[in-house]
């Protein structure tokens, strides 16, 4: 279990180590043919800020070699904003007095039709965390409903037990995204005071449960802005390294959600500038050539236009972050504000202009155990 590795590291010591990295450490990391977690620490350190251009050049080259001139596109489908957690940074938080909505099967199909119209074949199902109302049964029904419509179905919902994941994987669920939010145990508690999400350890062990359940892909990440992003990213990379060795048949992706404004919002404790996000993306690519790096519509148009050449392999477009947001109930409350509101077609055209092929389909339900 990752927890035993996690407990060998002390947050303050890790942080001090990152901030103590020198130019020489960064140069050694840049020239290394097999970069270690310590090299990653150097690449995310303040000392590496002066090496952004060489980092970007290597990142671009490594990404091109592994992923080619392609960019995978996906779209989120928000199913519900019901939530029993209190999270200081989220629009769906229990103490946020908003109109709650959970899509019915008919509404899910209406939303699906709109998404399919945009050209999507990969969908990410998103909910709040409301186990009773939007739990395993709801997910199973939704998966059965959507399987004929999408080549690839992923989920970003509450952490579940291994048996639940095993059942969903057998039904054709391809990937699960579960973000630790922050690896800082005390701060985690502060931001998640109520609800099941307040259990730091249960969340920390979720990727282990996913790995044991044999999921095809899992997504990791932290919510950038809650804590020092360098230290949180070090722990994320440590987690990734452990998972890749332990659950070697699983693919991994990393996302970079920066805290965005929302209804009743919290200001980020730590601001991450664009150049720092670029540094982080490049550092991940230099550390790991195979990991998928994903960017969402939280980021602004100009930034997204440029970032695709620096290591990103997956992006969303034309997203709505509210249940029913595509056609059923466009006025329901968003989880967070979108920064890049261009349509999927406009993003695809932008990609083509830059010499990238937008990939709408890179999986097939034929490979799912549910098919045979």
């Amino acid at each position, binding site marked *: 279990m990752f927890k035993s590795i996690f407990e060998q590291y002390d947050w303050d010591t890790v942080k001090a180590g990152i901030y103590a990295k020198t130019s020489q450490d960064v140069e050694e990391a840049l020239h290394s043919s097999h970069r270690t977690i310590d090299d990653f620490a150097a690449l995310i350190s303040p000392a590496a800020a002066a090496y952004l251009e060489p980092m970007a050049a290597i990142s671009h080259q490594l990404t091109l*070699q592994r992923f080619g001139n392609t960019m995978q596109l996906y779209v989120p489908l928000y199913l519900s904003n019901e939530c029993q957690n209190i999270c200081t940074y989220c629009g769906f938080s229990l103490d946020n007095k908003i109109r709650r909505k959970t899509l019915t099967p008919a509404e899910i199909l209406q939303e699906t039709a709109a998404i399919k119209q945009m050209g999507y074949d990969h969908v990410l199902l998103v909910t709040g965390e409301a186990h009773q109302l939007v739990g395993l049964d709801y997910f199973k029904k939704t998966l059965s409903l959507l399987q004929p419509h999408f080549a690839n179905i992923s989920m970003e919902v509450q952490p579940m037990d291994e048996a639940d994941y095993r059942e969903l994987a057998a039904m054709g669920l391809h990937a699960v995204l579960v973000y630790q939010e922050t690896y800082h145990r005390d701060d985690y508690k502060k931001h998640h005071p109520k609800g099941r999400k307040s259990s730091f350890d249960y969340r920390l062990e979720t990727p282990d449960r996913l790995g044991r359940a044999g999921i095809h892909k899992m997504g990791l990440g932290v919510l950038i802005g809650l804590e020092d992003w360098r230290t949180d990213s070090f722990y994320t990379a440590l987690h990734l390294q452990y998972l890749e060795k332990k659950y070697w048949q699983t693919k991994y992706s990393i996302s970079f959600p920066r805290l965005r404004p929302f209804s009743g919002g919290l200001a980020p404790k730590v601001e991450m500038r664009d150049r720092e996000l670029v540094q982080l993306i490049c550092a991940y690519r230099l550390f790991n050539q195979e990991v998928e790096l994903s960017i969402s519509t939280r980021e602004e148009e100009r930034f997204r236009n440029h970032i695709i050449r620096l290591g990103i392999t997956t992006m969303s477009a034309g997203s709505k972050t509210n249940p029913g947001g595509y056609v059923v109930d466009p006025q329901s409350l968003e989880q967070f504000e979108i920064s890049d509101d261009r349509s999927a077609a406009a993003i695809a055209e932008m990609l083509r202009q830059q010499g990238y092929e937008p990939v709408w389909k890179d999986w097939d339900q034929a490979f799912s155990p549910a098919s045979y």
Partner: protein
Amino acid sequence: MEPLIIAGRQFSSRLFTGTGKFSAASIMEAALLASGSELVTVALKRVDMDNKADDMLQHLAHPHIHLLPNTSGVRTAKEAVYAALLAREALETNWIKLEIHPDPRYLMPDPVETLQAATELVKLGFVVLPYVHADPVLCKRLEEVGTAAVMPLGSPIGSNKGLKTLDFLEIIIAQSNIPVIVDAGIGSPSQAAQAMEIGASAVLVNTAIAVAKRPVEMAAAFKAGVEAGRMAYEAGLPAVNTRAIASSPLTAFLEEA
């Protein structure tokens, strides 16, 4: 050049190509045409099998191009067999490139699942071309169960490192009764030529063409490299001597008697 025959089908080009990683389907098409390739792999997961007007398939619709669907993405023999059956129905071909790499990082082929799937697929009437590690014993086992060729790797997929498995490829080629197609890791025309010079029946190249600055020209370069390598092989490359041969051999005294 001698034509290559696999499962009764004749190929004049010994360069097989892939379809992934190109920046656009139109560029892929132009590169494949420049390569002269007559056998092109297609990942099932990238194709909309219910849609006859699938963009990628449209760009591959040339009389001289035969499609070789691959099972990339499957992790077990069971999944591979099911995917092959689907491909046969959707793409109307019984040729299948069998790829089972449960490890998504290095894409190393699983020998156990591959042999099991190959055995079953041959029984089901497929022309099976399995992607395998450069393992001489496994290649013989696959030949015995009836695969139409073997596709051992030169180095990890997409690495462009060339023939890191050279010693084992030479053994495989020396003892194979079926075509040996070097697949994966070939990053330059000279590496493709080297594979042909050692007697490979064909090579399969994707990344090196697809991610080149000018994929169409690179495809043409690979075509030339493969042809040069094959011509050299057929012409009979002189043996490499590791030391000079003395002009006055030690046994000359025997002639002087």
